[in-house]
């Protein structure tokens, strides 16, 4: 291999890492505040997780263990690619087991397993500004954050209720961090919002295209916005995971055949595997044998 093919550890040069770390420190010092940073050209285009990748690259060390998930799954294309990227440029250990990871980079989901004090969760964020769709002017939104003028955020929720009878926002649900800044938690389902509150882990958020980093330090208050008479509620699923029987977890819908067959399974693949490894089974894997597309699939389709 020629010199051309060698990378600096974790791809970014040390000066860039230093710049990003400074931004991270500032973000941790001001929870929920969007810190501008000099986002670099990465070997994947904008919209493919460059913010998250830069954060991971800035904090990862040779002893870290990295897990990458995309919508809760370790085995989708993006998760696989990013994991492979870090294996190549940092030569770090990787895992799919949540408990074993020190850094978890995620797109749009928080793992079901409770995170511990030595873990960092790195979120990929498309649009960091929670007010963007209500107030397109950056000059105005900056002032609103600076002056804590968040009436407009509640206007959005009011409109939801007026139009739909309830707050219809189901992902990227705005939260108030440490009682001060309103933040977009990235397009995670609102189901995951409670996990952000008083977490043992450090949560870092990176938006590469928009060039912003923000953070929620451990044990920080993260409160979802709501109205007194329309309190924040998470989604409820009627049925457990078809494979492992887990309840109160976020389920994905999987289409089984072209006859309308589908099943609902854990979005967090590691969580599901772990449960099955411990002997939990769901209705789909009932002891009386199965062939996923032979057994009357509609009967366990959760409505």
């Amino acid at each position: 291999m020629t010199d051309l093919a060698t990378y600096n550890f974790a791809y970014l040069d040390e000066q860039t890492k230093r710049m990003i770390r400074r931004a991270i420190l500032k973000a941790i010092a001001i929870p929920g505040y969007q810190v501008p940073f000099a986002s670099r050209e990465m070997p994947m285009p904008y919209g493919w997780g460059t913010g998250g990748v830069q954060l991971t690259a800035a904090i990862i060390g040779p002893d870290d263990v990295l897990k990458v998930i995309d919508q809760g799954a370790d085995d989708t294309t993006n998760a696989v690619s990013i994991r492979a990227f870090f294996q190549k440029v940092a030569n770090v250990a990787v895992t799919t087991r949540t408990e074993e990871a020190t850094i978890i980079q995620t797109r749009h989901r928080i793992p079901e397993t409770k995170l511990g004090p030595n873990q960092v969760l790195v979120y990929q964020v498309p649009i960091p500004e929670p007010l963007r769709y209500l107030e397109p002017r950056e000059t105005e939104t900056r002032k609103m954050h600076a002056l804590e003028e968040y009436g407009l955020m509640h206007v959005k929720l009011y409109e939801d209720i007026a139009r739909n009878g309830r707050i219809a926002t189901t992902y990227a649900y705005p939260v108030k961090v440490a009682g001060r800044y309103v933040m977009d938690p990235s397009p995670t389902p609102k189901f995951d919002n409670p996990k952000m509150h008083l977490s043992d882990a450090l949560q870092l958020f990176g938006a590469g295209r928009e060039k912003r980093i923000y953070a929620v330090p451990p044990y920080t208050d993260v409160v979802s916005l709501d109205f007194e008479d329309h309190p924040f509620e998470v989604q409820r699923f009627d049925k457990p995971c078809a494979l492992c029987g887990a309840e109160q977890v976020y389920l994905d819908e999987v289409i089984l055949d072209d006859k309308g067959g589908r099943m609902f399974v854990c979005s967090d693949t590691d969580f599901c595997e772990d449960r099955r490894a411990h002997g939990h089974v769901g209705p789909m894997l009932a002891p009386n044998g199965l062939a996923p597309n032979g057994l009357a699939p509609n009967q366990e389709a959760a409505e």
Partner: protein
Amino acid sequence: MSDTPLLKVKDISKFYGSRIGCRDVSFDLWPGEVLAIVGESGSGKTTLLNCISTRLLPTTGSVEYHMRDETYRELFRMNEAERRFLMRTDWGFVHQNPADGLRMTVSAGANVGERLMAIGNRHYGNIRATAVDWLERVEIDADRIDDQPRAFSGGMRQRLQIARNLVTGPRLVFMDEPTGGLDVSVQARLLDLVRGLVNDLGLSAIIVTHDLAVARLLSHRMMVMKDGYVIEHGLTDRVLDDPREPYTQLLVSSILQV
């Protein structure tokens, strides 16, 4: 009758280079008083209004406001957060073009409720009930509460703008040509509404208008501006019925009788 002026304007001047926007304007405004600033295009009346309402920084002069805690604060010494808070709670600003003072893509109810939400109201039912109440007070059908102002006529938009401004019970309202651009019949209705609200709520108001009939109907006092200067001021009916300055006499005599 209260003894303390609500607003003390001293020597306000605004220059654009060597051009005079407005010059040496001073007056006091008391609670419940409506002051009309009248003049033709280029007289400086809108510049003056913007300076007093802190939307423009004057070149010289000061504006003091009697806060709810009974202290006087110099408005241009306040920081931006305080000024913006004042603008949202104790003051109103009604723009000539209602689209400038409304969120056009958000429902009427949300437009009225926004200020309440901005000061911390978190009860949807109450906010909505207050919005319904205000829509009725400005004579907008309550069942339009979920419609967007884009679907409203000009007169309705203007009335919505007024409701949006008054919902937090401001003590001082600035109006920039509130009836400009409206049909005559619509104007009459709006003026009567404003008159009624000002009376019922004991509001102070500063209204910029080029229409002397609006001044006659709504204001207690009047200031006539020309080329940036206040050339005459006093009791409205006195200035209109017994104008002393040449320009005022010209203005008054120029009104077409119907």
